């Protein structure tokens, strides 16, 4: 053992690990973050992949970051600056488009053009989703109580939860139940008739998940993504100035200001366990660092089967982790462009290029994209969520040139025959070709192209099977089941060894809630 002694070591400088570290440092714990890459952020990083072109390499927009974290850590002081991402435009196959603008009246008018009934329904739907998000919000801030436990703390938590659900009233409780069990397509079918509208809305129900819009359970993911719209901090999806890496940098800045130490290029080989207790970590360079607390920000597979010897853990836990579903299903294509893409449905430069472009022309299109993946192929015509970050923050690309971020689904981790360089490029070609159907000049603008498959995401970030949520947001692995039953409270069977990543409740997106709750639980536990 060498060097200075720490109270806590956080493994992995992803946004949750940084949040945990900042809170621990705030509570006076000498905290060290160890990140294997040269930069912090995990899947929330900005990198100048090609000279002059800065990419939000993996994650690309933000909405869910918990407002209490922003306040507690004073993130604006450390560089948090969210710029409005104003619209979503869906090009249609008949040459028309469907737009959702930032102004509700303009959006209603636009919807009316396609379906007057849906225009009305949309307002009521928004109202209900608002209530659903308000209903779920307290759960996101709650350490999940174990319903099978008789401990006073769990019982009190369950009682609180029961009271909370009771207070919703029957109508909202039923709606919540439907959201928890239905597919997003079925749920939206109950509300809307215009297919491209349903397709575009259902898309947020499949993101990062190996589900199609017709798969049960996808409605919850839809709600999860709706959460950001009720909080005062953003009220909508936004783009961080400088890309999502600047969010990670702001959390890291706050953590450092609070006294935490952050080491990059420091890859942890294993957690040192003595007599059932974590006492530090060993780096792959051989260095050992001691600490009374070791917190893993990595996903459950790495936390329980790589950093420690699974043979020393209870069999049901190891089995649960083995069954825990990652199944990365999305890829990312980042383009450096010499100019602006011209959409055939809305030619020229315009405000629509400052928002998202959703390639989701119909529910059948999305379901077919899923069908490809279900049978082990990448989608020949994938769902895409496209953003031009340089239109929102001109600093992302040289003047007059642009960066394009394309989130793509589906690209299954378990591809037939496995991923190879040739298949990666074929996947990139499918993406560009499909998008060029709607933006014919796209191919002529491409200066550089970065294609990331789930295999690449795993290799670069460490995220198992390239799942961006550290495990699917599927009902069987949420709340007191995340990552596995009995171990949902950020603990592990090894004393002094904790979990704080997105693979714990509530997980998903640049939210930071897992990291904050983990810190709260750690600090609330006597040393």
């Amino acid at each position, binding site marked *: 053992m060498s060097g200075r002694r720490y109270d806590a070591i956080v493994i992995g400088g992803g946004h949750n690990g940084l949040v945990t570290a900042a809170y621990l440092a705030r509570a006076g714990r000498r905290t060290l973050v160890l990140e294997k890459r040269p930069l912090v952020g995990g899947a929330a990083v900005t990198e100048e992949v090609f000279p002059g072109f800065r990419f939000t390499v993996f994650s690309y927009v933000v909405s869910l970051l918990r*407002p209490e974290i922003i*306040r507690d850590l004073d993130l604006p002081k450390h560089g948090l*600056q969210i710029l409005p991402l*104003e619209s979503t435009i869906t090009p249609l196959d008949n040459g028309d488009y469907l737009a959702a603008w930032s*102004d509700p009246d303009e959006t209603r008018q636009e919807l009316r053009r396609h379906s007057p009934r849906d225009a009305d329904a949309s307002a009521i739907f928004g109202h209900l989703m608002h209530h659903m998000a*308000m209903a779920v919000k307290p759960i996101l801030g709650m350490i999940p109580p174990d319903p099978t436990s008789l401990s006073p703390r769990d019982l009190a938590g369950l009682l609180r939860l029961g009271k909370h659900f009771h207070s919703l009233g029957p109508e909202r409780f039923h709606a919540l139940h439907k959201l928890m069990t239905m597919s997003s397509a079925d749920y939206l079918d109950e509300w809307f008739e215009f297919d491209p509208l349903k397709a575009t809305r259902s898309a947020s129900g499949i993101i990062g998940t190996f589900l199609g819009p017709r798969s049960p359970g996808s409605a919850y993911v839809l709600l999860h993504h709706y959460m950001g719209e009720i909080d*005062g901090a953003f009220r909508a999806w936004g783009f961080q100035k400088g890309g999502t890496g600047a969010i990670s940098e702001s959390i890291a800045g706050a953590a450092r200001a609070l006294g935490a130490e952050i080491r990059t290029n420091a890859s942890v080989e294993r957690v040192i366990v003595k007599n059932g207790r974590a006492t530090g970590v060993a780096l792959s360079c051989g260095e050992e660092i001691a600490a009374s607390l070791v917190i893993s920000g990595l996903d459950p597979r790495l936390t329980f089967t790589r950093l420690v010897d699974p043979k020393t853990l209870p069999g049901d836990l190891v089995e649960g982790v083995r069954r825990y579903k990652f199944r990365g299903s999305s890829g990312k294509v980042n383009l450096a462009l010499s100019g602006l893409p011209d959409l055939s449905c809305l030619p020229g430069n315009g405000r629509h290029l400052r928002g998202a472009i959703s390639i989701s022309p119909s529910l059948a299109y999305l379901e077919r994209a899923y069908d490809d993946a279900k049978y082990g192929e990448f989608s020949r015509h994938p769902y895409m969520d496209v953003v031009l970050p340089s239109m929102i*923050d*001109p600093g992302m690309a040289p*003047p007059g040139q642009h960066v394009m971020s394309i989130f793509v689904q589906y690209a299954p981790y378990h591809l037939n025959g496995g991923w190879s360089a040739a298949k990666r490029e074929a996947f990139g070609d499918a993406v560009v070709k499909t998008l060029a159907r709607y933006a014919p000049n796209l191919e002529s603008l491409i200066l550089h192209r970065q294609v990331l498959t789930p295999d690449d995401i795993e290799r670069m970030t460490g995220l198992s099977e390239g799942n961006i949520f550290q495990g699917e947001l599927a009902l069987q692995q949420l709340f007191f089941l995340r990552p596995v039953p009995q171990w949902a409270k950020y603990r592990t069977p090894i004393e002094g060894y904790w979990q704080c990543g997105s693979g714990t409740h509530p997980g998903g997106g640049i939210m930071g809630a897992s990291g904050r709750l983990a810190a709260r639980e750690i600090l609330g536990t006597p040393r």
Partner: protein
Amino acid sequence: MLKVTPFHPRTSALVRAQTWRRWAGYQMASAYDPHPDREYAAVRSSAALFDVSPLHKYRIAGRDASRLLDRMITRDVTKLKMGQVYYTPWCDAAGKVVDDGTLSRLDDTTYRLTSADSSLRWLHMNAVGMDVVIQDVSEQLATLALQGPLSRTILGRLTPLDLSKLKYFRVAHTTIREIPVSISRTGYTGDLGYEIWVDARHALPLWDALIEAGTPYGITPAGVWALDIARIEAGLIMLDVDYYSSHHALIEERKSSPFEINLGWAVSASKGPFNGRGALARERERGSEWGFVGLEIDWSSFERLFLARHLPPQISNVAWRVSVPVYVHGAQAGYATSGCWSPILKKPLALAHLMRPHFATGTAVEIEVTVEHRRMRAEAVVRKLPFYDPERKKA
């Protein structure tokens, strides 16, 4: 019919929701989009272009120009260098503020004064017997404010002037694409920014040049809503919103001294005779009855008021401009005059007048918040102004 500015042919084509308002007798855009989010974001992220032509502008020239201005304003004009700009209030004989604005020294005997209110009568009253020519150039001179972190980069592409040498609160004559202009490193946003002064006849080519050169850098035409949020974050006051001109105050109570609106720093203690000198010296001696401060409203306490009624906190993306009571230990200690949700600081802010001794930084106060028709109080803390002060503003 309200007047329109020389940029109207361009700005009117951009106002999508016809959100017009009045400003000094002019028709002016509140925002070009239906709401100001993107226009505000440009101020803090790239560059926003504001039409600020409704400002009253005076050209004051002649042997006694310095004497006149030194008598009028509270800062020392004898120390104002060529090419320098003062932000300054000016007072009546009782030391109460008449107006505030900028004074630029264009050459040895020529100045430009801007004001929120029409000031021609006051200038003439102070100039009796002096060798000075006072011209109201409000309509001849069009003005654009280019504000934001990329404002220097954009202007740099258009002017031969070395902008790295144009320091904070300095002004220079130059050209933009052959158009004669003066550029001052000033603004009303608390960010890096410039104001460009141009003959109204060249207004449109100037606008077009800025838009063309600025587009790759995210230049964004912006209206008063965005400006209002930025100026509150910057702790900059507004006449008729945060204070009344002593010339228009209906009752004595409505008048404020510079000390009482956070402009004590702009009152010279050493210069010769000027309007209000005696009264201001006495006030400096005995201390002011009122202070003008920032209030940072505690979000958790604000949110609780709404959650108690099962509502998410209601915040507007437009600043408010009404008088709101402020309390200390249950008794009214003052009033806030404007406030907003700060998108950059992620906090609700207000500007407030507080009675002695409650204006000390760090004082805990309560501010009235109306929640579901009920008057509630949220916790707030007195903060020093400005709330937001990026290094690039002066760098």
